[in-house]
């Protein structure tokens, strides 16, 4: 079972939920932790893993052999990302725009293009208190987080409870982290920003047809609109964490809540059981709704359009 902890807005408490959920299952379930927030991976601060293996994630960048190139421009015409251009007698490659798809090499009539690997970041794997841990880390100055997340997802051990800490937002890195999840736990806070971004995150989870539940963090600081929204949309709120200076100071020092306050271990255990039963029920109803993959995809496309019209400016 893969539980992805996500949020539209940053800083709502994803890492806190993911870390404590994983630790609360220690000794009860086989657990695996994946930190997919590869731009700013923070779970290691709390879990203090022993990193045993590091591997590089690369994309392939085109390199042009000037002796073979006749500046025909086929590569530049084919590239959808404007990552390669012919200027005078030179061909320029814009590394940060290149997706590494290889099309330029395919279309080059003189076979002047070959590809060289370029490191985007690394995957670090190891153990935390006997359970497997992996995290991705985007190199500073690199723009593309998604390929690292896809690579990281290959580490998933089936038959484990895989807790995934997702990056904030609603774009491609978030999608990559949510892909294949059995449940999305969306963490939010009861403020207008929290509500606005929760709505966007719910849109993402729905387009991917991942069953969704909400965790309300810093409960009590703002207004009731998040709770009203969840009720309207039929999304269960499975946990509320109050704003509390003690929780904030434990967070600040990198100490997991369940280690410092044992009663939270029980509460996160309850959260897991809720998550498990909820994803099973939701999963079976989704499966019976959808006759075929093709139908599923058409529905996804329709939901996406509907979702986009509903957005406020």
């Amino acid at each position, binding site marked *: 079972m893969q539980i992805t902890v996500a949020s539209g*807005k940053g800083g709502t408490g994803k890492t806190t939920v993911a870390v404590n959920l994983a630790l609360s299952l220690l000794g009860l379930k086989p657990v695996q932790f994946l930190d997919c927030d590869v731009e700013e991976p923070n779970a290691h601060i709390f879990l203090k893993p022993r990193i045993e293996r590091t591997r590089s994630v690369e994309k392939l960048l085109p390199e042009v052999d000037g002796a073979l190139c006749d500046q025909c421009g086929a590569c530049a015409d084919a590239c959808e990302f404007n990552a390669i251009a012919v200027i005078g007698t030179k061909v320029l490659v814009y590394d940060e725009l290149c997706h590494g798809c290889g099309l330029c090499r395919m279309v080059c009539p003189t076979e002047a293009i070959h590809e060289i690997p370029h490191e985007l970041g690394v995957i670090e794997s190891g153990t935390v208190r006997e359970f497997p841990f992996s995290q991705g880390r985007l190199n500073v100055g690199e723009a593309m987080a998604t390929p690292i997340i896809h690579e990281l997802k290959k580490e998933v051990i089936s038959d484990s409870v895989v807790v995934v800490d997702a990056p904030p937002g609603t774009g491609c890195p978030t999608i990559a982290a949510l892909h294949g999840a059995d449940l999305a736990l969306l963490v939010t806070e009861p403020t207008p920003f929290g509500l606005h971004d929760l709505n966007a995150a719910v849109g993402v989870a729905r387009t991917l047809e991942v069953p969704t539940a909400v965790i309300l963090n810093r409960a009590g600081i703002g207004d009731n609109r998040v709770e009203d929204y969840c009720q309207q949309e039929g999304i269960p709120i499975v946990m509320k964490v109050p704003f509390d200076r003690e929780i904030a100071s434990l967070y600040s020092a990198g100490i997991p809540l369940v280690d410092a306050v044992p009663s939270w271990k029980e509460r996160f255990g309850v959260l897991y059981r809720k998550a498990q039963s909820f994803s099973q029920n939701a999963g079976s109803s989704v499966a019976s709704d959808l006759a075929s993959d093709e139908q599923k995809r058409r529905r996804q496309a329709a939901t996406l359009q509907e979702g986009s019209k509903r957005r406020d400016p």
Partner: protein
Amino acid sequence: MKSILFLSGKGGTGKTSLAGAFAFLATEKVLVDCDVDAANLHLLLDPEVVTEGEFEGSKEAVKDPERCTSCGKCRQVCRFLAIDEDFVIDPYLCEGCGACAYVCPVDAITLSPRESGHWVTATTRLGPLASAELYPGEETSGKLVMLVKQKAGELGKRVKAERLIIDGAPGIGCPVIASASGTNAVILVTEPSLSGLHDLKRILGVVQHFRIPAYLVINKADLSEEMSRKIEAFAATQDLRVLGRIPYDRTVTTQMVAGKSAVEDTESPAGAAMRRIFECFTEAFNDRR
């Protein structure tokens, strides 16, 4: 026209709250929301839309199942694992590169543009705004950020603005790098936690990589005096000027609920700190010029 960008690395440290304060305090400005994944600045501004449009950021491969002979060439060349064993294209994994369409021997695949987001320009109670939102699950956030900045630049020329006040995205990746290019100053907003410091180091690396003058603000500083000091000590080693500390203050949230910035509440301790930070920044930035 000078642009001032708010970044943080870690999310939820208070970028938008501080950008909202600057929006209230600065004169002759255009407000810009470059956090296209989770655009929130408008929630403090009561905007009225002036112009808007769809953003076609990327394309996606669409297959005509009638023509497809299931030869599998497309799947062999796709580097994004977007084509499954039944040769169905996953729109969320497809990056729209067109390699599959190129190799398809029966022309069963075409690239079709997709609406990836929506941009607006608006008048607001605190000045003109350019903002955009990416639709759920779309990728080209960097391109959309560039488009918002372009709209903001045009708007700025028209109203003869002196400053662009830009709210950025969390993280260090694509939308952040797009928002940072060509910016005159970056204000980094952090919080006193190990995570805040860890993420600050990474975002500072990006800002230094692009050689942009940077300033630091520590938000909710009193939640950990110890970490606030550590962050200040780190800033000193990096020649990173600390503009000030903002205390944890519930009026920031109550003001947000009312659609306002904390500086609009004259009793708010956080609001008072934000005012001082604005003055300190203005002075430092003018000296630099």
